[in-house]
């Protein structure tokens, strides 16, 4: 009932959930199919701080009662919790290894990627999808992506991540098919780096 007392502050979700979530899904599907490409979500949304529109749209499109969600310290506030519980009905978990999705509002201070479920050898799909909200998808240090979905190679410039992030991510390539899939969000834009992508810098 504590959340209910804040009911008047609860922000709305997608205006027209059926077409809006379909549209957002197609953007994230295109982003996952062509790693490193930046797509814009065209939905009208006023999410609770600190979530950006793309981050919030991803949550409303992909999360429900089947997906335990882990929030980093920056995203973990009462308003975000209440908003996710109300619109997605997703369990919010404290342990990184219990999460199917993770939402990072401050990825520079995030825990190691391999703290999240990587799937098993037989079922690598039972792994986490990590949503990283960053200040920009164009102004960061460039890394080069290669792999499925990329014709030759593609440059990717996410800002606001720790210096060691791509080194750690690169170490995880040896674990394939186990691993985590990354979705970057910034403002209304999103991009993805699935586990199949080789990152070089």
């Amino acid at each position: 009932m504590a959340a209910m007392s804040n009911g008047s502050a609860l922000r709305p979700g997608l205006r027209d959930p059926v077409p809006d979530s379909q549209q957002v899904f197609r953007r994230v599907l295109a982003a996952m199919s062509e790693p490193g490409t930046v797509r814009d979500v065209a939905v009208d949304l006023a999410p609770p701080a600190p979530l950006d529109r793309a981050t919030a749209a991803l949550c409303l499109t992909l999360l429900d009662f089947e997906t335990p969600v882990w929030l980093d310290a920056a995203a973990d506030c009462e308003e975000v919790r209440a908003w996710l519980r109300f619109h997605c009905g997703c369990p919010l978990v404290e342990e990184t290894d219990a999460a199917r999705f993770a939402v990072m509002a401050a990825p520079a201070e995030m825990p190691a990627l391999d703290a999240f479920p990587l799937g098993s050898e037989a079922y690598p799909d039972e792994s986490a999808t990590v949503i990283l909200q960053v200040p920009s998808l164009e102004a960061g240090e460039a890394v080069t992506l290669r792999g499925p979905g990329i014709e030759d190679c593609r440059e990717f410039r996410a800002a606001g991540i720790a210096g060691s992030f791509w080194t750690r991510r690169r170490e995880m390539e040896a674990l394939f098919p186990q691993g985590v899939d990354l979705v970057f969000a910034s403002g209304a834009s999103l991009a993805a780096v699935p586990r199949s992508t080789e990152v070089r810098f």
Partner: protein
Amino acid sequence: MAGSGTSAGPDAARPAEDGYNFAYLDEQTKRMIRRAILKAVAIPGYQVPFGSREMPLPFGWGTGGIQVTASIIGRDDTLKVIDQGADDTVNAVSIRKFFARTAGVATTERTEDATILQTRHRIPETRLAAGQILVYQVPIPEPLRWLEPREAETRKMHALEEYGVMHVRLYEDIARFGHIATSYDYPVRVNGRYLMRPSPIPKFDNPKMDRSPALQLFGAGREKRIYAIPPHTGVRSLDFDDHPFEVQKWEDVCALCGSGGSFLDEIVTDDRGGRMFVCSDTDYCGRRREAGHTGPAAPDPEGSGA
């Protein structure tokens, strides 16, 4: 609505019928399938289990492909459905009508006009473009199933990349027939990792999967599996150094459009051994004839109505 020109060309988008959620499936099911599709794209060729729903047609009629299409399709999409290359056979017509009715989307027979193409057992002859999505209906997703019936074992074989048994099977073809006799559902390796069953497409179509600019999604409804090939992903048909992979060839050309480079169906025309070969891809063949190409058995242009 049902009777007016079922296969006579493209149908514009119109309001979906009341009483259904958009594209039939409920939103929670779509979310579950969408998450499975994303994992499938992230692990090319790997079969992701999903909670396949009961659909208003029996398993074996493309329920996997329909559930994938229903989860990705939007109001702005244009849908093409083919069954063995043809737009006007019963499976293709009924699936196209299903989505015209429950989603109100535009449909087409022209390969390049479609944003989503659902297929049963063929890849169109017209080269697919970036941004298009090809959805395959899959009866048996597990390439090792006839060699190892236990799911727990085939899972382990995929985990350990233990695919020797499939090479043995192809080698047995060579030992018995002198060549690899497998002509459809020909096993491939995706991105050098997972062994994948391309659904029963003829091996003629296998090279079209390799580095295709389109996204390819595979749905198996009865077996409850989804898998995917992202664009620009290497897909290699298994073979041997001394028996390289080859596709079928025909001595004839298409009797209607004269095409010598397309997959041909054999049609028996009488009970005295008469036969002709025609393109399996009806859109490709029809458009070639429109452009003036003719084959040896083409009806004269004035009288053609079929």
